[in-house]
């Protein structure tokens, strides 16, 4: 398993998504058997105001919400605009495309196959996970972040 290379794809939407739309698409993706990992990307929404005279004040933001994917709560910390997916087989892309078509109705999106996730540990990964890092963790979350990835209950 360790040497196997899994196909990956990237979904980029024309617009940044509301948490409700992210919830919708993730729930569609979560029921497709054969998606190994999903990374959601976008600009950071900080919990506190990071710069300026108001630095340190709480930063209420509708994009920083908790969504429910399957039976699991997922805390969004970014305004989502990109999804990276690692698949077991390439033919899943078709199903993913159909799920996107159903959800992204008001704007366009693109799906691209390629290699998008980190495959070799960086120095920071090494400092965090040590020499025997679990490959599945690489590139899944920022190694400097204290929170880990969210695990969804498998569907088979």
């Amino acid at each position, binding site marked *: 398993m360790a040497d196997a290379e899994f196909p990956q794809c990237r979904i980029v939407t024309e617009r940044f998504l*509301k948490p409700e739309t992210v919830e919708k698409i993730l729930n569609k993706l979560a029921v497709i058997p054969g998606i190994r990992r999903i990374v959601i990307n976008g600009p*950071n929404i900080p919990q506190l*105001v990071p710069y300026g005279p108001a630095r340190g004040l709480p930063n209420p933001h509708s994009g920083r919400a908790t969504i429910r994917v399957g039976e699991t709560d997922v805390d969004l910390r970014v305004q989502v605009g990109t999804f990276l997916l690692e698949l077991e087989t390439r033919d899943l892309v078709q199903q993913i495309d159909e799920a996107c078509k159903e959800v992204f109705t008001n704007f366009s999106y693109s799906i691209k196959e390629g290699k998008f996730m980190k495959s070799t540990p960086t120095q920071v990964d090494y400092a965090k996970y040590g020499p025997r890092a679990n490959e599945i963790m690489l590139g899944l979350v920022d190694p400097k972040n204290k929170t880990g990835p969210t695990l969804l209950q498998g569907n088979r």
Partner: protein
Amino acid sequence: MAYTPQYGPGQSVVAENRRKQMNPNVKLEKIRNVTDEDIVLILGHRAPGQAYPTAHPPLAEQGEPDCPIRKIVTPTDGAKAGDRVRYIQFADSVYNAPSQPYQRTYTEAYRYRGIDPGTLSGRQIVECRERDLEKISADLVNTNLFDPATTGIRGATVHGHSLRLAEDGMMFDMLQRCVLEGGTVKYVKDQIGTPLDKKVEIGKPMDAAWLKANTTMFHTLVGTSYRSDAEYIEYIQRIHSLRTKYGFMPVE
């Protein structure tokens, strides 16, 4: 022969909009009516109704030295009263925002006195005396230089001008200073991100057709492409060629 400024090259609608904004003889089109009090709230420099804090005594009281320049230059109201220097900063989305940093600076420099504009890639700040600033800000917000969705008043944490728009058409704002509620944009935080006691209504976002017709930014995908303006291309190639050959002292 009297010199008539041309303001800028180009035959496209974008070029024409740029010239209109820069030319002080063209009146800016008033689109919305944000009150002075609301402007003060968004700026966040003083409470509405509060007296202007001063940086020095009024010029009439402090005794000016005998200086020929001071005799030529009439001080602005803010300078006369000794106001503090304060700022307003804008971030403009690349998706057909009505203005953009360089354009703002040119426009303000042609139209207003006693200002210090600062131009950066994704934001533009203008500093001046506080009471002058409030007047200028009202102009900048109430006219066709501003769109509630694609222009942001952002004192700090300005990131957003080159990012995709959100689903509702708003430019990304890490601090979400303004929200779209019932089709109207309301500021819930002042420009640095401090929550406001009341929501400040700033108006409806302009539609895509208006933005495309009134933008001063070229955009290949959603607006007018730069390559479609032959005169602009010729101009920029000439400048590039002169700079390359002669540095900053071009001689043809």
